[in-house]
């Protein structure tokens, strides 16, 4: 079975930053060696933050780049039923957007690529985690 990665907003940000830790994963996805999944919420958050810091044009360009790439942008809706249950379980640890990511990762048996250390000792079935800390 091909490797699957579920990327959070922080990792998308490190990608445009040129962080060398992200490159191998993105290369693997771009080559088709692994599947990369991004939630629509994460992409929205990414574009919103880009718009704030680098302008609307850059947010549009980067969004277009991701949507037309091998990264798969998934709609959150089918995962929300699982997401709220996960939010109940990890209430003070994860945001609702994190729980949507976690639900997607659980359904598709992904490795979560995240900048958030709160995921480090996560124990959920079918999910593994790789934290890329930022300081």
């Amino acid at each position, binding site marked *: 079975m091909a490797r699957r990665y579920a990327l959070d907003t922080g990792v998308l940000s490190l990608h445009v930053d040129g962080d060398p830790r992200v490159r191998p994963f993105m290369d693997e996805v771009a080559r088709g060696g692994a599947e990369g999944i991004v939630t629509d919420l994460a992409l929205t958050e990414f574009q919103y933050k880009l718009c704030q810091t680098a302008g609307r044009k850059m947010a549009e360009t980067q969004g277009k*780049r991701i949507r037309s790439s091998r990264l798969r942008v998934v709609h959150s809706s089918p995962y929300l039923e699982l997401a709220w249950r996960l939010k109940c379980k990890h209430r*003070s640890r994860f945001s609702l957007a994190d729980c949507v990511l976690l639900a997607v990762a659980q359904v598709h048996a992904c490795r979560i690529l995240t900048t958030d250390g709160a995921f480090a000792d996560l124990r959920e079935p079918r999910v593994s985690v790789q934290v890329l800390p930022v300081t």
Partner: protein
Amino acid sequence: MQILIAMNSVASHMVMATITGRGMMHIPAGLRKQFGIQPGDKVELRPTKNGILLDRVPTLMEGFGTLPGIGRRIAIELLEEKKAELAQEEKAMRAEVNRMRRSRRGEKVRA
């Protein structure tokens, strides 16, 4: 990297292409090379008043490292915002639980 497919004008340096029954068109090798168009690339077709603008969409890896410094700043801001939101949510939740407990004990509860 943009090619404008102009309507009703054929200049001497232009090449002709034929549209097939399924709407497909061959872009000559020279133009593909000039504009860096590779097999598998995505292009955006945008109608303009002068014709159809064919715009190559940059690949995922071409986006790598395009915003040095900014991307990291965004990642840090996101974590700080999330931490603050979760703390706020927790505070609100505790206040609500305490309010409900006081209410159950029959204490006077502020609205």
